[in-house]
């Protein structure tokens, strides 16, 4: 297992490098000139050209990429064009907000979504199941930004129960978390339900019943544990979507997190900010996928057997399988 993790960590490097290069490439081909934005519309072409030169914007892409890598190795993400502050320091102060928002939302989604899915599955084809699934469908279909605005409008403006925007007290967190997680509660619930319905039809569930086990043990010990394996995968992928969702919720609710920072960088053509944020977000996402794979191996012995034991016969199989997650990331 240790070898497996080390290998996967090593795999992170090309993935993150690739993403960074693509971001640099995209920035180069998108219209908009940071120098123009910094100097304003009145600036003379000479001044713009001079600034472009000092920012290194006219260098060839590969040179800029190597320069960027050189900085990153030293823990330096450059200086923001707009604020003139180091990107790294900015990101460190903003990181906790995003991490809190994403992890609590993920926690809420899992804690509410899985039981809801089990409930729907155990009441299959009754009004309870239909009701739960109808509500889920409603929340899955609702875009985060729209739902967030509705929440602000209702709880912030009309009822005045909760703060509209900014982070001052714990109450400020309620609306952003609800807005981010509801869609995912629904996604997890639907996924759990369909997996449960699939698993309870399996022969080993009949075996468990035939052993005389109580219904509850059959459902939770034998069925749910098996049904959750694909759900773990979904949760991992959701993390990426959650980060994307956080970009929007942070802007709507005025949370000073990484998402807001990234959006500000994007609109201001602030290249170091964009590159730095994307770098950090992709590292975070890759780490989560790694955690998911490790959890997979812990839960499912069939995968554990494949992820490299000191068994020469099995190692061959292991190597083939370990290539799979790579493809997922790519």
């Amino acid at each position, binding site marked *: 297992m240790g070898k497996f993790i080390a290998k996967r960590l090593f795999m992170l490097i090309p993935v993150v490098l690739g993403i960074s290069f693509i971001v640099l490439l995209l920035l180069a081909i998108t219209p908009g000139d940071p120098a123009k934005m910094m100097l304003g519309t009145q600036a003379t072409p000479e001044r713009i050209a001079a600034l472009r030169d000092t920012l290194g914007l006219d260098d060839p892409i590969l040179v800029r990429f190597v320069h960027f890598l050189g900085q990153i190795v030293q823990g330096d993400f450059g200086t923001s064009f707009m604020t003139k502050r180091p990107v790294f320091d900015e990101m460190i102060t903003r990181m906790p907000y995003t991490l809190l928002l994403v992890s609590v939302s993920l926690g809420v989604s899992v804690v509410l979504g899985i039981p809801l899915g089990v409930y729907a599955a155990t009441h299959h084809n009754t009004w309870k199941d239909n009701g739960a699934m109808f509500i889920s469908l409603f929340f899955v279909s609702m875009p985060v930004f729209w739902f967030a605005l509705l929440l602000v409008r209702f709880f912030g403006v009309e009822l005045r129960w909760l703060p509209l925007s900014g982070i001052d007290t714990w109450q400020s967190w309620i609306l952003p978390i609800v807005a981010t997680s509801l869609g995912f509660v629904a996604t997890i619930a639907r996924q759990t339900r369909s997996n449960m319905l699939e698993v309870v039809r399996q022969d080993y569930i009949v075996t468990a019943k035939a*052993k*005389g*086990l109580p*219904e509850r043990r059959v459902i939770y010990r034998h069925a749910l*544990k098996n049904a959750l394996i694909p759900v773990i995968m979904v949760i991992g992928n959701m993390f990426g979507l959650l980060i994307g969702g956080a970009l929007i919720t942070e802007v709507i609710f005025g949370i000073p997190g990484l998402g807001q920072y990234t959006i500000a960088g994007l609109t201001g053509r602030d290249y170091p900010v964009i590159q730095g944020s994307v770098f950090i977000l992709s590292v975070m996402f890759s780490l989560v996928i790694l955690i998911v794979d490790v959890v997979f191996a812990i839960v499912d012995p069939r995968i554990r*057997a494949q992820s490299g034991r000191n068994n020469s016969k099995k190692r061959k199989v292991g190597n083939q399988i370990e290539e799979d997650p790579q493809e997922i990331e790519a």
Partner: protein
Amino acid sequence: MEEQGNLLEIRDLAVEYHTDEATIYAVNHIGLTVKKGETIGLVGETGAGKTSIARSILGILPMPPAKIVSGEILYRGNELLRLPEREMRKIRGNKIAMIFQDPMTALNPIETVGFQIAETIRQHDSVSQVEANRRACDMLEMVGIAMGRFGDFPHQFSGGMKQRVVIAMALACNPELLLADEPTTALDVTIQAQVLEMMQSLRERLETSVMLITHDLGVVSEFCDSVAVVYAGEIVERGTVEDIFDRPGHPYTLGLFGSLPRLDATERRLKPIKGRMPDPTNVPEGCRFCDRCPRAEDRCSKSPPAESEIAPGHAVKCFFAPQR
């Protein structure tokens, strides 16, 4: 009918499956007895209702869509179909256990085999985890698996080994009745023989009654004391192995034997029973076998024949049954 010595008695059992499109008449008012220590073979084609009978006994039919529409199942005089779920759970896996057709899918893939055996033991006997694990190890040894494999997962076993695990699980609480639903169908021939031999010796050792569901007449002749021939959800003939094999009374039973290839004959083609089993959603009014029966007459398609006893303990459901 004699009452003593009957471990299990099924009377007038009928099972239907209700789907949106149709009602499937899977088991149609059958009666059956299993004596203590006896091995009874349930023989019939695929889809004849054999598995539904076994699952009814254990109360593990998928309901819905299945529904038991009539009948009673008496186990030691207790009516199982009316037993509350709590009481029924004490019988499942403890007094009556079941071995399933496909060992590849009958075990939970993410639990160790040892856990799955010990779980049964802990469910029924109030013993400590350590004691349950020890007994699970004993069970593994009994079915010929080294106890060192207690902590292995199902995917680390071959098909035959998995079936041994399933058998160990079923026998873990010394059941009085073992329902073996085609225990060797999914295994290859050499493993079949091993598994059957093992079941045979375990049965003798533990004095368990066995209901063996199969479509293999060879297995029946070697393994069973009595036989019930199931056709389209009905028992068309029942009796001892000698009755059925030496003096078959029902045309369907005759057809079954006729369709067996013979080593000493020169025919090159198999002789199947012509036609197919009637559509279980639309069962014929008269005898179920009427369309395929070489001896069918007018009366056969009009009303179903009653079961008649042609010798003590040997009953046939046919108008042409030789009378005593």
